[in-house]
């Protein structure tokens, strides 16, 4: 079916018959549930392997049904609602979380135009001209679920967890929103399917007389944006090493401490769906979406970019990104809260703004409409600005740090004993004698200085 091989445009959406819409909605919904069940197992198995354990391997083939049985068990557990809880809000919070998580996935493209039961339709639930904003809006609304869960529980730990989480999510939402700007600027659109199409072809680059085709993926083209997105996505989904809202050692379970039974399962589900969503958005915006990676895409005139094949590449990319999430969790310790907020506000946001302006400047310079005069003016102004900043940057000469001997000399009497700071353990008297016997030539001056060294610990009162 090669005639179907075209990527959809915005005009292709909104023409599906009602049963096709229903089919797609139910399909995406079921896929999200299945993918969640899979991801939980995937995470447990990968983390287990990284910790030299087998992981879940009892339920079902190779343990792959573990998450399903865990999920089925949850509704049959007793539900405990604390007396101090605000009942209505307590009930509403997990629902808000789950609904936002589901809705955000509705604009993710899985593939090109395909034929389903004779109907020609894009392999995507829907797309609008502001599709990426819809994902952001759902992310913004999802914060309500967490804040309200923490507040409505009427307990200290959830309140602290919800409080931390909301501040964390709004901080990283700014960084995430800013990282989209470069993509919109390059693609010239906010619709997910058109962003995928904009990444289809590499653009020819002439670098020092060397002609080559740069890859169309925005992860390569807009590397700073990609890195910032990846970091803020981890912060936005409350995953390790940014999982401060549920820092077990400090806050027990964070905002869901007081939740049990299926209400807890809803939060769990929402967290995993959010993880899948940010991976899918990352795939769409930065990794070329459903298109096959380069060597495969060239096979047989793009055969693998047609029909249902792209689903494979899409899910492969998502799984690789999910693996990244799990890898981070298995590797990195949790950050301290002030470090984490400082990183978001003082590093990610200014770097992102500077990068956007730099990209805009480069694009303006490259624009054919700009004449040479303006071009040189801009470059000159830029150099002047950089020079001024470097000249006027307040320089600070830090006071010289005292070295070890000075620090040691400052210690008052009766301080806690420390091992020798030069890390040379004094040889035992017997060893010294052996050395002296074996090497009589060295025994003179060297040994005399050694004997004045430490080893006075024996004289301490016991």
């Amino acid at each position, binding site marked *: 079916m090669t005639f179907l091989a075209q990527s959809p445009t915005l005009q292709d959406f*909104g023409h599906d018959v009602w049963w096709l819409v229903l089919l797609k909605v139910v399909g995406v919904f079921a896929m999200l549930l299945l993918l969640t069940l899979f991801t939980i197992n995937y995470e447990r198995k990968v983390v287990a392997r990284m910790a030299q354990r087998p992981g879940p391997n009892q339920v079902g083939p190779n343990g792959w049904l573990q998450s399903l049985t865990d999920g089925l068990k949850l509704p049959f557990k007793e539900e405990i609602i604390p007396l*101090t809880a605000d009942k209505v809000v307590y009930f509403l919070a997990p629902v808000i979380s789950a*609904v936002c*998580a589901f809705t955000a996935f509705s604009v993710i493209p899985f593939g090109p135009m395909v034929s389903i039961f004779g109907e020609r339709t894009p392999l995507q639930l*829907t797309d609008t001209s502001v599709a990426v904003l819809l994902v952001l809006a759902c992310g913004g609304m999802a914060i309500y679920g967490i804040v309200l869960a923490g507040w409505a529980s009427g307990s200290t730990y959830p309140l602290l967890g919800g409080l931390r989480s909301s501040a964390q999510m709004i901080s990283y939402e700014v960084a995430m929103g800013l990282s989209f700007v470069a993509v919109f600027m390059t693609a010239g659109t906010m619709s997910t399917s058109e962003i995928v199409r904009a990444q289809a072809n590499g653009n020819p680059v002439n670098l020092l007389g060397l002609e080559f085709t740069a890859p169309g993926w925005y992860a390569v083209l807009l590397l700073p944006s990609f890195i910032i997105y990846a970091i803020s996505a981890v912060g936005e989904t409350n995953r390790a090493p940014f999982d401060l809202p549920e820092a077990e050692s400090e806050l027990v379970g964070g905002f869901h401490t007081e939740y049990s039974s299926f209400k807890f399962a809803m939060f769990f589900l929402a967290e995993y769906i959010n993880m899948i969503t940010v991976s899918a958005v990352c795939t769409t915006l930065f990794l070329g979406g459903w298109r096959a990676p380069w060597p495969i895409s060239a096979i047989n005139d793009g055969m693998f970019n047609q029909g249902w094949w792209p689903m494979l590449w899409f899910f492969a990319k998502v799984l690789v990104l999910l693996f990244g999430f799990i890898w981070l969790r298995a590797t990195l310790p949790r950050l301290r809260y002030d470090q984490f907020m400082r990183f978001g*506000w003082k590093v990610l946001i200014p770097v992102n703004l500077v990068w956007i302006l730099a990209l805009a400047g480069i*694009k303006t310079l490259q624009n054919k409409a700009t004449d040479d005069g303006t071009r040189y003016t801009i470059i000159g102004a830029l150099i002047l600005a950089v020079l001024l900043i470097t000249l006027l940057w307040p320089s600070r000469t830090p006071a010289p740090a005292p070295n070890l001997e000075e620090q040691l000399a400052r210690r008052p009497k009766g301080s806690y004993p420390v091992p020798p700071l030069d890390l040379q353990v004094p040889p035992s008297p017997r060893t010294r004698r052996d050395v002296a016997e074996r090497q009589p030539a060295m025994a003179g001056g060297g040994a005399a200085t050694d004997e004045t060294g430490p080893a006075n610990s024996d004289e301490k009162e016991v």
Partner: protein
Amino acid sequence: MSLSAWVPIVGLLVLGALFSLFSVAIAPIVGPKRYNRAKLEAYECGIEPTPQPIGGGRFPIKFYLTAMLFIIFDIEVIFLYPWAVSFNALGLFGFVEMLLFIGTVFIAYAYVWRRGGLDWD
């Protein structure tokens, strides 16, 4: 683009809402109930719980500042989006005006940074 492209979004939203409402509502009916007064108290690692969360469930004022900063940057980002989408059409003029805009907001940012509004303790 017609409004019908939005219908599937509403469809997924409604389906998700039905699913979560149903399962959250059904769980207390299906699950067992073993009453115990101690279970209904707020969880505080086993010690006698404080009658109310710290400060009667209040947030520190620090969070107000964070939320305010978030609004400022959110509005900036929202202005950046249409500018980015039609960047090629706006050209040099668009670049210069966005430079001015970001520069001005950066003054606010630098002020807050300098006063220590971005520090946590």
